[in-house]
């Protein structure tokens, strides 16, 4: 318990260091642009592929579970839309990004720690936590909502393709279903969750990497911890945010 509280306090002190005033805003801007590419643009591919197949599977499973003729066919489209918007686009994408982006951040910063690159920054008088992590946080907080919107579009598209190609639903019924009783707030809910998840992934992973002590073995362990802790905290916050935003 004491170890947990120590780590908890250390995490908040770390965040205080991350959010302190940048030395040279122009350099931070350049770093942020580079992180947009590393952590954002480079994640579009994996998010698109996973969303497409997830949309396809949701459609087929919804069709399988609503075979009774009393259910109108367009419910398949509606079910696909709501499942993707409410849960899959934000939470599953966040879990995937915790694996891809989180491990990347922890390994990068951890390697910088064990090869004394962070010490070199500190010796120069640079606030290393802020210089290395703030641009990553800004990039993921701004770009992950875009990834979520991409996941929604591609997921629904994948559902439509799978549904029509397998013959479980016509394209007209699917399109009617995804437009039926649409609540725009669901998109806002999904984006709000994504912003929280982006903060969790980046800050928890960076924290694990920043305090690595040892060599390559510890960097590997930090990377694993980053993914596990981020995923667990995402799932916990998913419950809390759902209760707060949808109740």
């Amino acid at each position, binding site marked *: 318990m004491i170890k947990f509280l120590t780590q908890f306090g250390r995490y908040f002190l770390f965040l205080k260091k991350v959010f302190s005033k940048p*030395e*040279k805003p122009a*350099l931070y801007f350049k770093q942020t642009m580079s992180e947009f590419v590393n952590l954002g643009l480079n994640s579009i591919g994996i998010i698109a592929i996973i969303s497409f197949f997830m949309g396809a599977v949701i459609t087929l499973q919804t069709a399988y579970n609503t075979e009774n003729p009393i259910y109108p066919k367009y419910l398949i489209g509606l079910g696909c839309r709501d499942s993707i918007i409410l849960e899959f686009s934000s939470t599953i994408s966040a879990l995937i990004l915790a694996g891809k982006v989180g491990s990347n951040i922890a390994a990068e910063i951890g*390697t*910088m720690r064990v*090869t*004394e*690159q962070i*010490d*070199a920054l*500190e*010796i*120069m*008088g*640079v*606030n290393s936590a802020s210089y290395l992590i703030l641009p990553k946080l800004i990039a993921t907080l701004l770009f992950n909502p875009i990834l979520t919107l991409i996941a929604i579009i591609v997921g629904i598209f994948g559902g439509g393709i799978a549904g029509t190609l397998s013959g479980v639903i016509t394209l007209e019924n699917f399109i009617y279903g995804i437009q039926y009783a649409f609540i725009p707030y669901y998109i806002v809910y999904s984006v709000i969750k994504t912003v929280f998840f982006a903060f969790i992934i980046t800050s928890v992973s960076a924290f694990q990497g920043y305090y690595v002590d040892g060599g390559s073995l510890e960097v590997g362990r930090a990377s694993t911890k980053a993914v596990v802790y981020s995923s667990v905290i995402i799932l916990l916050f998913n419950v809390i945010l759902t209760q707060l935003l949808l109740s």
Partner: protein
Amino acid sequence: MITVKNLNKSFYGKPVLEDISVVFETGKTNLIIGRSGSGKTVLLKSIVGLYEIESGEIWYEDTLFNKLDFAGKKKIRSEMGMLFQGSALFDSLTVEQNVMFPLDMFTDHSLEEKIERVNFCLTRVDIINSNNLFPAELSGGMKKRVAIARAIALNPKYLFCDEPNSGLDPITAILIDALIKELTEEYSITTIVNTHDMNSVMENGENIIFINEGRKCWEGNKNEILNSDCDTLNDFVFANSLAKKLRAANKK
């Protein structure tokens, strides 16, 4: 000049440095020598403020460094350069960008001025036509020299080198030692070098302290080290068979 008074440092309750007092003089290459694990790197990192010390004082000229806040330390740190054991070059930046980094961060010079300064520093350490290479493409010796170029980019008053010769062949090691000595004298820098390389000691040892198990056991210069009556120092200095034979021959 850097003055250390009664410095104590421990990790998890285990003392690593005990009651270290020493003066590092300006314009001289001051060496900290000792066996691996004796506390040399901890002492160096404590002096530059990477480690918080338990007790004692670290003075940079007439400023008590270890009691300063982040802003106060930052001012002194802008006058420091450090060469790390593994060079600590930024992997994602080219040689030119590495050397330019402190200039980007702490000066308002134009790009032309910065490039001019970078080229001057790289030429000074004999790195030519390598501006666009990444650290992964450099040899160990080149990495050390680029790291020295980065360390001197802001004209430091204090230069710290942690085992500058580790992993280098004897000839490259001598070149690095000579370069550190030249820069120290040329710019009147207070230089502190951590080493366990006896060649460095005999080449650059103007002011030497010997650390053993976290305590300062001996202080002197390269002329005095061969005739010391400190047994632990003699065990260290004359550790290899060649040195033992030379010592025996000297005694005869």
